């Protein structure tokens, strides 16, 4: 008789810890062939509230680390991710119904995407910041700063590559995030949480809620302590509009959902929306 394996429990990732949903709810996660994979926690609005609190708490420390330090930590995440590739390959295969070769390509692309973003930490200021030649005796400098707590609806279909492609750009510049994972393909997100939890990333910088964006999204959109909302994974047009309307309550910076090829070079498109520009003046004189 073959060995019985020890199956994983999939919980939420909030403040660096793995709690169950306070609502006690779970839902069935199946693979592409409808076979049962696991019970995933079904996040409630209270979980999202706790996640925002954790993200806000982590923001002060994360945003004031040196960019080099953030870059090193993100690179470490890539190291750990790479070390766990086999686990991710099998999970992506099951979740997305890919062949082994396709799943491999996805995981490799996800790791490389993370490395690419890690390298931006100590360069962003040089590419999007600059001195301004004002017409007066003033030193004038514009620098990018992170906007704060960013809510993210992760892509529904691309459960790993799309996921890292929305998380990494937000945090590399110093933001902290609350992510609602793909509803039907949440397991790579919780696996990623385990990688994040063991990579020197401070607790609360990334918080991942498995659950339904239609249920939690409006609460995040109306939350006055969330500064931005990336609607990448909101496939329903009406819901996307509703969330954008809700976000207007405290003028969140919103990234609307568009059809995205997650394998393509993203450029600065997901870096700059979550940056504020701070311009400082100082007189020049003896």
């Amino acid at each position, binding site marked *: 008789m073959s060995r019985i394996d020890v199956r994983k429990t999939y919980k939420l990732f909030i403040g660096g810890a793995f709690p169950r949903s306070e609502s006690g709810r779970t839902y069935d996660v199946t693979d592409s062939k409808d076979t049962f994979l696991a019970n995933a926690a079904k996040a409630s609005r209270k979980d999202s509230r706790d996640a925002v609190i954790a993200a806000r708490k982590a923001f002060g420390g994360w945003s004031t680390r040196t*960019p080099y330090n953030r*870059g090193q930590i993100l690179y470490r995440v890539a190291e750990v991710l790479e070390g766990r590739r086999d686990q991710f390959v099998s999970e992506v295969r099951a979740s997305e119904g890919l062949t082994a070769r396709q799943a491999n390509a996805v995981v490799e692309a996800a790791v490389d995407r993370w490395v*690419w973003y890690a390298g*931006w930490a100590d360069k962003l200021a*040089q590419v999007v910041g600059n001195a301004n030649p004002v017409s007066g005796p003033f030193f004038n400098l514009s620098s990018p700063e992170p906007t704060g707590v960013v809510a993210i609806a992760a892509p529904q279909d691309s459960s790993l590559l799309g996921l890292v492609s929305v998380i990494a750009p937000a945090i590399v510049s110093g933001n902290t995030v609350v992510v609602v994972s793909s509803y039907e393909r949440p397991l790579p997100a919780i696996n990623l949480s385990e990688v994040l939890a063991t990579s020197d990333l401070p607790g609360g910088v990334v918080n991942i809620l498995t659950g339904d964006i239609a249920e939690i999204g409006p609460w995040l959109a109306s939350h006055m302590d969330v500064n931005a909302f990336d609607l990448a994974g909101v496939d329903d047009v009406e819901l996307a509009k509703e969330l954008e309307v809700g976000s207007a309550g405290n003028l969140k910076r919103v990234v609307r959902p568009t059809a995205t090829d997650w394998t393509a070079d993203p*450029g*600065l498109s997901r870096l700059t929306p979550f940056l504020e520009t701070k311009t400082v003046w*100082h007189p*020049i*004189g003896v």
Partner: protein
Amino acid sequence: MAAKKTFEYAPAPESRAIVDLKSSYGLFINGEFTDGSGSTFKTINPASEEVLAEVAEATTADVDKAVRAARTAFTRVWSKMPGSERAKYLYRIARIMAERSREFAVLESLDNGKPIRESRDVDIPLVSQWFFYYAGWADKLGYALPGNGHSGANPQPLGVAGQIIPWNFPLMMLAWKIAPALAAGNTVVLKPAETTPLTALLFAEVCQQADLPPGVVNIVTGAGATGQAIVEHADVNKIAFTGSTAVGKAIARSVAGTDKKVTLELGGKAANIVFDDAPIDQAVEGIVNGIFFNQGHVCCAGSRLLVQESVYDDVIERLKRRMTTLRVGDPLDKNTDIGAINSAEQLARIKKLTAVGDAEGAERWSPPCDLPSNGFWFAPTIFTGVTQAHRIAREEIFGPVLSVLTFRTPAEAVEKANNTPYGLSAGVWTEKGSRILSVASQLRAGVVWANTFNKFDPSSPFGGYKESGYGREGGRHGLEAYLSADPAAAERPPGRRTKGAHR
């Protein structure tokens, strides 16, 4: 209660055991160590004059072999590799350097003479950070040249870079040269200084550990002749040199009429300006750090103190008092502040120039120091009563010797600070923000440190005006030297001039 006696620090030596010193080293060409075809020379520990190892003197034939290996690696492997893959090699190197940091720090102190505290806390961490920073540029080159934002036209590497580095920060200078060159897609032939070859040779091992494709990095040891062979080689596209202004000028003459691009980082005689409203205790630290860090073997050293006359007495008194706590001695002792002078030649030069200072009437002062009998040592020294008309105010001494001048107004400070053929760096000490910015905007120096000194970061461009050289290292600007917007740049044989080529 303990009876009052002096708080002496017992010896606190860092162990040498971590370094596996070989008795002799060859050249690192095409991914492996190979004997040179010429003679050998010895490298010594300047703190004790003990011979550390025998090193090969690369001949013109050896240099040719190295350049060929670099060219082949460039054409067949490195220029074809996507930036994201090149990045990963550089990240590997950065991480291995961090892992082996103590080993490198000890070896650097043995070969160079600098205190272990500095190699451990400053040099080696910056090396790892430099590779880490430039690794991240390798796949973002479209953002590197002016006209940021993805222009679609990816800038191209130049080809083979010949790099010649000095003895004052051996491994750090290696990182400043190799990291951006490789990130931009070039391959390199690098010559470390003849008195400090060992950390470069150990770095070759790291390249092997990182599985760097053979020929991407080649290390050829030797002295002036080897350097000349690199500069004059017809198949080198770019020369990067850090060293003396005299040699820099020779290189500039040598590449005239060719297509070779050149960057030079040369000498300096930086003014460290202290105003009457400076944060006085931190300013004194800045003065000390500016000239005694690394035994003053620093191109950007604050070797001229320009102190506002109204606070002259106070500053000098505090400076002298602070100097009495400087510890000169065994570089491997963790409590040493000032290590050995790098070579007999350099020590002779320092002695000669300080004798000139005496002869020209400046007043010399050093704190009492017990200097070891073996090795090359010079006590930290200040000369007061110095004016612009003293040779020790104009010529680079490259040792732990500070020339002290005075000024009355900001305008006079700026005028004196700029009154030199050099223009590498300057320091400004004042609590008034507008004055910092006003003075900084008028100083003709490539780096201005306000209320700090000797700060380096891979993201911060470094380089000089005037005879301190041209080009910048570090930051986005540091990549420009290794890239061309012209896709055909690397194809053209660099040794022959074409129309419209410029440096």
